[in-house]
């Protein structure tokens, strides 16, 4: 079979290498480089769409699987595959990368070749994270992603870019190290429990019956790494700095895809690998998520800087995703996965718009704007749509995810849903207040009087996002249906503990899991 996934994952890398071959002294061939990079990313996007069209939506198994031995003595494999959960994250990455490249068309002039190459390398790493089914391979992609991102922030960022880049690296690395230990520990446990050697094979590890204390610590190690990436309150403070200092393209990718790697990690690894620990920690995680929803919204409300506002709103939105995951039921989980995509579109779109404003005025202070609707009506129209998408207006994408998450959370524990739902009010407060200060009222700064409206290039950047926001709001079934089997499978894996604890349910797979120690049962 043709190695589809490998092609998709490494295509951007090939594109990056190609770029490096182009000689570009003094930026003379910037245009060539930009078009080449764009072409490469569009090719990847087309490939992800092709993947989607060939994807069997009724199947819960991993599809397009490729499996080769890599380091046999340690049981490391090159093992990739895609299911209904990762499929759309691949497509999302495929959409956002060309958009990010196009968004920096006129704002990045320094080292265009390196910039474009780093962005493509980053895309490879992100795609790799979403398809890896071998933990070792996953970890390599996970950490590889840091390097291009570090440079994107550190070289092409704004004034305090070095501080932000270092902070970003240190936060993520701190989490990753513990996760690496847990990954090695898992492989080792595989050997000592089954006696069949080390293995990083996710499917094998899913069926591993770990002693409780191992599960406890491994879950914490994985979850810390993912929680930092999400970012879950109180591990979020790297995010506003990273966003504010990153160039627009970096912010779009960061918000659009990178944050999702955290929640994806929870869904793919932490929860199904350690189901009893997941059930044990879910209330605590959900509590942090709910705090994050409210806290992120309140702090976003008082930000004077547009990018910081959107960054804190991400903390709030991603809190919804974690809450949905913790609910451990169909609606919560599906809503969470859907919300990952939504957040990529709406927050990505908002960062693009902030980037456009920042390109025009070289400031992101809300107070520097005002009355833009009279000056740039089209820009404001798309701004309004992305704002509405972000605050979850029904008919646009955000609502579907939020509603499913709230429903899942409500069925689990209405208290979480009640607190999370206050985010519905707060998001309207901070977004509309910001929107008003930027776009309504009289034009207060003379510099703003002659700002140009959307250019043709900018339209190509933002219209896909607007179209996606509407499309995903009206026809969510197109995405939810292929997700369903994989989500069901996932929930079966995770809820084995719950089933084991309730023998009356009479499920057949009860015997698969080790019994939980008595003290856990009491606490639950």
């Amino acid at each position, binding site marked *: 079979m043709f190695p589809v996934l490998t092609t998709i994952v490494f295509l951007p890398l090939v594109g990056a290498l190609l770029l490096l071959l182009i000689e570009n002294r003094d930026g003379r061939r910037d245009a060539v480089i930009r078009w080449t990079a764009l072409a490469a990313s569009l090719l990847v996007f087309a490939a992800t769409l092709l993947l989607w069209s060939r994807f069997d939506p009724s199947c819960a198994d991993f599809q397009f699987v490729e499996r080769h031995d890599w380091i046999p003595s340690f049981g490391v494999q090159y093992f990739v595959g895609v299911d209904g959960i990762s499929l759309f994250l691949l497509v999302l990455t495929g959409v956002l990368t060309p958009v990010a490249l196009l968004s920096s068309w006129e704002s990045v002039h320094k080292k265009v070749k390196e910039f474009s190459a780093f962005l493509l390398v980053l895309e490879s790493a992100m795609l790799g994270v979403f398809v890896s089914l071998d933990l070792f391979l996953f970890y390599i992609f996970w950490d590889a992603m840091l390097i291009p991102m570090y440079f994107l922030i550190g070289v092409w960022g704004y004034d305090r870019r070095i501080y932000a880049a270092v*902070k970003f690296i240190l936060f993520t690395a701190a989490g990753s190290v513990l996760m690496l230990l847990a990954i090695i520990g898992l492989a080792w446990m595989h050997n000592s429990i089954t006696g069949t050697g080390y293995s990083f094979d996710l499917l094998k590890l899913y069926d591993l019956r770990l002693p409780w204390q191992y599960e406890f610590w491994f879950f914490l190690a994985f979850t810390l790494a993912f929680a930092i990436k999400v970012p879950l309150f109180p591990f979020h403070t790297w995010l506003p700095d990273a966003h504010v200092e990153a160039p627009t393209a970096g912010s779009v990718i960061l918000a659009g895809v990178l944050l999702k790697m955290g929640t994806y990690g929870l869904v793919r690894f932490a929860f199904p690998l350690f189901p009893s620990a997941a059930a044990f920690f879910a209330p605590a995680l959900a509590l942090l998520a709910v705090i994050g929803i409210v806290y992120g919204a309140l702090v976003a409300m008082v930000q004077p800087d547009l990018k910081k506002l959107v960054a804190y709103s991400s903390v709030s939105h991603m809190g919804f995703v974690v809450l949905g995951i913790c609910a451990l039921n169909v609606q919560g989980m599906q809503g969470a996965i859907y919300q990952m995509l939504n957040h990529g579109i709406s927050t990505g779109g908002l960062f693009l718009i902030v980037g456009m404003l920042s390109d025009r005025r070289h400031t992101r202070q809300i107070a520097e704007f005002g009355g833009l609707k009279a000056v740039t009506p089209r820009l404001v129209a798309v701004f309004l749509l992305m704002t509405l998408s972000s605050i979850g207006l029904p008919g646009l994408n955000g609502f579907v995810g939020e509603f499913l998450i709230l*429903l899942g959370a409500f069925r689990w524990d209405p208290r979480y849903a009640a607190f999370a739902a206050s985010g519905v*009010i707060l998001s309207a407060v901070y977004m509309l207040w910001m929107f*008003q200060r930027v776009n309504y009222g009289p034009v207060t700064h003379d510099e703003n009087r002659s700002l140009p409206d959307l250019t043709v290039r900018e339209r190509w950047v933002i219209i896909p996002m607007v179209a996606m926001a509407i499309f995903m709001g009206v026809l969510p*079934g197109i995405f*939810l249906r292929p997700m369903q089997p994989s989500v069901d499978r996932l929930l079966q894996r995770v809820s084995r503990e719950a089933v084991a604890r309730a023998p009356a349910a009479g499920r057949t797979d009860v015997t698969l899991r080790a019994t939980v120690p008595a003290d856990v049962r009491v606490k639950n």
Partner: protein
Amino acid sequence: MLLLIPLLPFLGFLVNASFGRWLSKTMSGGVAVAAMVGSFAASAAASWTLLGMPAGGRVIDQDVFTWISSGDLLVPFALRLDPLSMVMILVVSGIGALIHLYSTAYMHEERDSEYARYFSYLNLFAAFMLVLVLAPNFLVMFVGWEGVGLCSYLLIGFWYHKTSAADAGKKAFIVNRIGDFGFLLGVLLLFSQFGTLDFHALARGISVFAPETARFGTLSVAALLLFLGATGKSAQIPLHVWLPDAMEGPTPVSALIHAATMVTAGVYMIGRNAVLYSHAPGVLELVGIVGVATAVMAATIGLVQNDIKRVLAYSTVSQLGLMFVAMGVGAYAAGIFHLFTHAFFKALLFLGSGAVIHALAGEQDLRRMGGLRKELPITYWTFLVGALAIAGIPLLSGFFSKDELLYRAYANGHPYLWFFGSLASLLTACYMFRLVILAFHGERAPDAAAKHGAGHDGGDVSQGAAHGHLHDAPRPMAIALIVLAVGAVLAGYVGLPGVLGGSNRIESFLEPSFTVESAHAPASTAQPAETGGEAAGSAALEGGLMLTSTLVACTGIGLAWFFFVRRRDLAEAAARRFQGLHRLLLNKYYVDEIYDAGIVQPVRILSEQGLWRVLDVGVIDGAVNGVAVTIGGASGALRLLQTGSIRAYAASLMLGALLILGYMLWW
């Protein structure tokens, strides 16, 4: 076929939103009006079909597509026509079409692109409102519910360059979102209990329960949460604060959205869930109390306001309160009947005030009006009809519906609701005629002329102002006024009460919408038809109350006449005498100020000073940076060991070797 009803205005929106900047005013206005007329025609056709069906089985369903499906949640995007939604679509599309027509003249001073933008919003509003009332389940209703909120936001802030307009739009949206918070949680609770969001299926599920009279159970909680949503949308205490500010929008918008249609969505939603509310009597009682409190409070404020539109806005709040009273006593049909008649006369009053404002170049202050009767005859006479209707003068629409709901309040055992409802009616008649007298009678205040040339900073039109004399409403506006005036007279006759020889057809027509459709449904809603001697007694009661209502209305008008025509000095003296009260009313009981000081500012300060600057930057990030600094410091200390001096290294090597040796020797 049902789909056509909201689809036509939506297409109108698409046309004006996409191509508006290239369309002439005639084109964009024409498209918008045509879309609404088409929608009204489709509504009428659908209603005709519905009326042809046997009573009790009057339901038309149309599935459009599956919207959300996840696990056991299945939400079809579908539409459903039943007697309740039939009344609503006729009101929305009919009055909507008239107001669109009126707007073609009223907004004529706007630039072409702004004109198209206005009509695109107005069409979009109509589409969402029609979805709201045709929704067969909560989630589709929520689409309409939020959609009309969005359009309201956009239209209130239509003159966005005015800070006050932009503020008012934002306030409306946010206050509505507080209600939506309750609405959403109520929906979640109902789904987790009954596993469906479909109104019919929910009603069936609920009907097997006994009414929660003694305890406050799930149904009561759900009803209460949904009621919070209703208070937001229908501007009831404590979420009434947005509606008066919403008058920043163009006047036809106030007429359509903030009087005739959108604000009644809360009343409609409760009617739609009549079975649920009937099973939560405690909450229903609360609905009535909130309604009557809002009615009286708003009416007292209306007495002293000087902005013509604000008087009408408080009047709307007050009338909505009366509708909630009807809901609260279980007289759902009476509430919807009042909603129906109110749509006519309140739209008429707003459009009339718009004609005045139009003629006076944007002047909205009653103190600068007066004597307009002669100069604006069409406006005056139609406005007078509206004022008489809302005051409850017999044989006009408002009389029938208001009387009906007050009678129900009394007959269903809530005499105090009847009493305060009547008080609100008295005040209504009084402030309405104060308005009529101040605006149309007497003499124009001398400084009014000076204002004319100046125009209005709000962007309100200034046609005719430059001329010496005032122009009455131009033709499209006049048509709308006259048609609505006729409606304001006649609309009540669909519900002619039994005492006056009618059979209250609208109530018996609506009744199936408030019960479970199965035959053995408990007659828990509204009042069953009385029989025998009881009927004679209640006829006497109804007649008596009707007479009282008439007296109340006449008293109110009389008071207005006495204070504002006969002894104007007394009104001023009273205002001086009860200065505290007067200021309290003028400042709307300081509710806005209380909210600002009690909620808005604390949250803002807490977020800015507490959460962001202290907790986030200080504590959390401080801890992170603290770790970094500590590690940096420790590394700095360790760095001192890296002296590069061979001798120091040799010495430390020696020392280490000695320590190891010592360890091995001694232990």
